[in-house]
């Protein structure tokens, strides 16, 4: 089902998900690139297996480990050439775990975003203290940790006590149709070719991630000392 839908998507044109551009270059042959490489003429390192994605996602350009796969710091300079839709699906899942399926679920109305209070109340062990995170602290954390420019490219669907954490984030951060690469992308493509823009696939965040919860723990710990 997922692969069938992915196939249909790609048949109708290239797609962009997070920093990726995926296109079917000829029937049954697919190419995945970093969006910055999609329009540049520089020579790219060719990879022919989805497993190569595991290495590409591991470190950023500076060699730092990318704990957060949604962060806007995916390396450039590579091109993945794949020969089947299952391979494409696998590669996308290595780059952005669960992202494509989440979008399909969202379209079918099967995705229920989880309120941050519910996420934190569920925590046990060393993360139990995160229940003490105040709303204003959660807003600040979202503003810093989830910001599309420096934090994470996912579109936030979850809430804090029923309210979107929009105090320090732009409206577009909560709009599934908005391209989170936003201004950064427009600036980059200003002088580029006026080719067909890839179809934007929403990159969704339905629940605050474990890295967010770990950050929340640090905040609570600092304030309780």
């Amino acid at each position, binding site marked *: *089902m997922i692969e069938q839908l992915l196939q249909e998507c790609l048949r109708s044109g290239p797609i962009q998900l997070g920093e990726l551009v995926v296109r079917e270059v000829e029937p049954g042959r697919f190419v995945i690139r970093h969006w910055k490489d999609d329009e540049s003429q520089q020579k790219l390192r060719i990879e022919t297996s989805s497993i190569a994605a595991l290495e590409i996602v591991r470190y950023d350009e500076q*060699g730092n*480990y990318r704990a957060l796969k949604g962060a806007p710091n995916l390396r450039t300079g590579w091109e993945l050439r794949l020969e089947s839709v299952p391979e494409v699906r696998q590669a996308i899942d290595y780059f952005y775990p669960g992202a494509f*399926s*989440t979008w399909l679920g969202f379209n079918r109305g099967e995705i229920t975003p989880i309120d941050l209070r519910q996420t934190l109340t569920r925590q*046990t062990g060393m993360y139990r203290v995160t229940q003490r995170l105040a709303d204003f602290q959660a807003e600040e954390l979202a503003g810093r940790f989830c910001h599309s420019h420096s934090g994470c490219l996912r579109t936030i669907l979850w809430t804090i006590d029923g309210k979107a954490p929009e105090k320090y984030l732009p409206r577009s951060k909560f709009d599934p149709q908005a391209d989170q690469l936003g201004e950064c992308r427009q600036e980059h493509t200003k002088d580029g070719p006026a080719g067909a823009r890839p179809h934007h696939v929403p990159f969704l965040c339905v629940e605050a991630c474990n890295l967010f919860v770990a950050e929340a723990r640090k905040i609570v710990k600092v304030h309780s000392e």
Partner: protein
Amino acid sequence: MVEAPEVYIVPNFISEGYFTAKVIPRELELTGAVTIKNHQTLRYCEPVGSDPRMTDLLLHRAAEVARDAPPQNTSLVIVAHGTGLNENSAVAAKRQVAAIRDRAIYPEVVAAFMEEPPEISEWMNLTTQTYVVVVPFFISDGLHSYQDIPVLLGIQSENSAPASQQDVFRHNPYELRNRKLYYAGAIGTDPMMADIILDTVDRFDQQHD
């Protein structure tokens, strides 16, 4: 994300413990070994660390890392995480120690832990032989096996380079107070792990038919 009607969940964990007993069932909303929901049957297997071949893997790692250490003068230390949150966490490592002792290859085999006694930082007092081989009973070479345990062993200083850029395994043996210490990589990185995952699924079916 997973659409198949039959789903096996294999925890890539080294032992039963807090995560396999509490966190995974909670996060996946499992009600027991078999959970039926949304037209899917979810089968929750044992962690890979419970596989009988773990003993062989540990011994293989120990022999591989300390080729020039005579086994009859070697203490083998199996280091695991351990936690006060669940009493089962240390059980798997202790079980492995008992199984290795039974094979009578090394005169001394001990378990040591990061977060419960006996602690790995005490390795010098826990062992008596000239050669000491330390094998981490961990799934991956992550923060614990790359950075935390080397610091606890005293073979690396606290503020060293990021874990991913270190070559802690390349300096064996470490000579400390007339002992020769060999430090191995985590056993979960062994290629045999793929077979162990498949066997874990088979074992589930044998136990729940």
